[in-house]
């Protein structure tokens, strides 16, 4: 059917819900256009100059009532549309802990994705079907935008900040992955594939990837090799904030503010230690701004997060 190939394939329940809203809005718009076309057309034909139709003044009463009528009607129709669409957004709910977290780094003109076990890929993202996936994304230079038309999702990727994109695919297949925010010369070549596989195929694919030590493991190696454990480890004699289970906790800062230790806070503390100094500690931590790449920082943050979950298990 002609309609089938002019509509993008939907690969998740969210995509289906968006399509329902899209069709409804399309229906309402076509209705309004037809209404105007018919009314306008009839007026144009009936009241063209020289036509025998009845003229005379417009019934004054009629004009004021009609005016208020369609103003209120339009207003409430639009407000209903707003609340219906907004309800869908609010119902998507907060991120659960169990999401499969894939780190995506956008740089000028390619997408670098890294699976939890460290498998790295360029311009492709492999995800298992029917599992909630969370893409934690950041950019190394300008603003890019990860666009997955099949999932009806798009999210700008900003430098120096983590943004999330969460979805649960419900259909296997290979779908386009594009950059939607203009980012320079090769903006139109910054495209790739989103490959949704069955769980088994995904596991088999994961093992087959070279050098797949998990991200948290690599984070632990960095934690020791960079000397973080020198101050933050258990046996350290230097007074430094204890990082066991710090992820998610609220931290009291020297200037009286309390902040929630989320991914951004941890990244800022590694790259800009003097930005938010923890209460009761000296600002002696060196900045790692030029030594660490974005992927390394992501690994360290993943390691600190794993510390949190481990501490809860004991």
């Amino acid at each position, binding site marked *: 059917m002609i309609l089938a190939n002019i509509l993008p394939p939907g690969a998740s329940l969210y995509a289906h819900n968006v399509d329902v809203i899209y069709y409804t809005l399309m229906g309402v718009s076509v209705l309004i256009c037809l209404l105007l076309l018919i009314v306008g057309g009839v007026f144009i034909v009936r009241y063209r100059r020289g036509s025998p139709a009845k003229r005379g003044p417009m019934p004054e009463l009629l004009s004021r009532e009609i005016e208020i009528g369609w103003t209120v009607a339009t207003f409430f129709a639009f407000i209903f549309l707003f609340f219906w669409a907004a309800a869908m957004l609010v119902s998507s709910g907060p991120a659960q802990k169990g999401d499969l977290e894939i780190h995506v780094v956008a740089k000028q003109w390619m997408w670098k994705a890294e699976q939890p076990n460290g498998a790295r890929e360029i311009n492709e993202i492999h995800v298992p079907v029917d599992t909630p996936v969370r893409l934690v994304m950041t950019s190394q230079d300008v603003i890019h935008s990860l666009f997955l*038309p099949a999932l009806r999702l798009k999210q700008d990727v900003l430098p120096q900040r983590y943004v999330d994109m969460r979805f649960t695919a419900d259909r296997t297949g290979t779908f386009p992955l594009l950059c939607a925010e203009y980012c*320079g010369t090769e903006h139109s070549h910054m495209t790739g594939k989103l490959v949704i596989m069955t769980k088994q195929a995904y596991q088999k694919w994961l093992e087959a990837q070279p050098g797949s030590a998990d991200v948290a493991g690599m984070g632990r190696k960095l934690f020791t090799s960079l000397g973080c454990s020198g101050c933050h480890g258990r046996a350290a004699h230097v007074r430094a904030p204890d990082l066991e289970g710090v992820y998610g906790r609220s931290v009291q800062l020297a200037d009286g503010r309390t902040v929630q230790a989320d991914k951004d806070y941890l990244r800022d503390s590694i790259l800009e230690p003097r930005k938010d100094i923890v209460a009761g500690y000296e600002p002696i931590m060196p900045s790692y701004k030029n030594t660490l790449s974005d992927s390394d920082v992501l690994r360290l943050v993943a390691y600190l997060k794993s510390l949190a979950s481990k501490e809860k298990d004991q």
Partner: protein
Amino acid sequence: MSQAAAQAADGRPLTYLSNGFTLRSWLTSTDHKRIAILYAVSITAFFFLGGIAIGIVRLELVTPTQDLVSADTYNRLFTLHGIVMVWFFLVPSIPTTFGNFLLPMMIGAKDLAMPRLNLFSWYLYVAGGLFTVYALIAGGVDTGWTFYTPFSTMFSNSHVLAAAMGVFVVGFSSVATGINFIVTTHMMRTRGMTWMRLPLFVWAMYATSFVMVLATPVLSVALLLVMAERWLGVPIFNPTHGGDPLLFQHLFWFYSHPAVYIMILPAMGVVSEIFPCFARRRIFGYQFMVYAMVAIAVIGFFVWGHHMFVSGQSGYANLVFSFLSFVVAVPSAIKVFNWTATLYRGQITFEAPMFYAIGFVGLFTIGGLTGLFLATVPIDIQATDTYFVVAHFHYIMVGGSVSALFAAIHFWWPKMTGRMYPEIWARFAAILMFFGFNFTFFPQFIMGWMGMPRRYGSYPPEFQIYHVLSSAGALVLAAAYLLPLGYLTWAYFRAPRAPRNPWHATGLEWTTPSPPPPLNFDAPPVVNEGPYHYHPAEVGPEARPEGAEDEQRASSA
């Protein structure tokens, strides 16, 4: 000496056109009508410059691969198209040409309140234009007309400084025009012209002027900060120094959404003048049309966040801006209903202005409704930065504002030049433009929702069919834009002379001779009734008075 007695060189009554033929008389004239012509010429030049840029882009997009121009040239072409079309054609188009020409005449004044400021605003426009043309010649700018940071401040190595300075300067030109119109509307209305007797075109200019004065400075600040960061290296938007790239987007869109209302409000004013004239009926719900225009101008400042739904803005802000964007759509819907209702029980004739005006209402309705799609957050997440949004704003700006511009050109052409225009050619051009436009932009809606991102030089092959259709439509549209240039130039020299009031329209500008004398009115007119007193109560089918027929056809001297 009263100008009625003043004779031009060839014995005909002195008009603003024959009041001096040297270049100096044009470039130093503070007559609002001459400045309108100066603006008209410079705006047409920039319109075709922007048109050529997008012509090459559309040719490139016929093939999925990048083979006509390099990726860099492609980026500079669509940026040039954006900058020139938004700031050097659409924002000034109707206010500075028809607003300048008609506002004083419609309220019965001799000239604008500050004639020298009016000429200064044209020189600011030319200065801004020179900066942009320099940026083009020196190599172009590749940041997109939105100048997003940190690309424009840190990663682009094109002439961002010159282009930003050009837009910075032309911004003050529109502030100057805004000041002039507001003071004129307040202070120079003739006796009897109360606020509620103002023609809707004057209300449109008044509302647009406030939007120009209130929104443009914030754009100047945003571009000033980009220029400071690029030239002096001061890290304002630099993310590694604590800057937030979204801050630029907030400041930019605080101007750029009201800017789209600067572009559409004057078009609404023009259509509100044309529908009553050609339907021979009073506008339906005059007060509601006025309140709707003012409401659009005010609420237009609350909705800019809907350009940033996917940019990393907080979810709460998305909902707030989405709600306000639905609210701002209501006044536009009211206006469309009122225009349609104006046709009821009228005596409708279909000269060229009416063709364009009906085309405006149709295309603006489609543009407005797709705006509702984009105000809905989940739909906008899929549709923003794709060709769906490109098609949406072209339906509003080209389908709406440019159609109304051509409607205005044909409606007031007899008054401005003293000549008629070839009716058959004009209607053909209107129909060609309507189909060329739909042929170009409707396929973009379809491929936009399928996921074709905007600003792509090469694209996935499955979209090629839509690009080919769109490019073919663009050729038809280009032809439709060249036609009026042709027959109007011919008409200026050869067409029969226009009578004082060829359309038998009401409105003070039609009481002056065409073309009007330098100071418009011999004696300041007095107004004693509302603007559109077209429809005598019981008139039968032949609405126009007997003598009207032959006078309009005859080419009276």
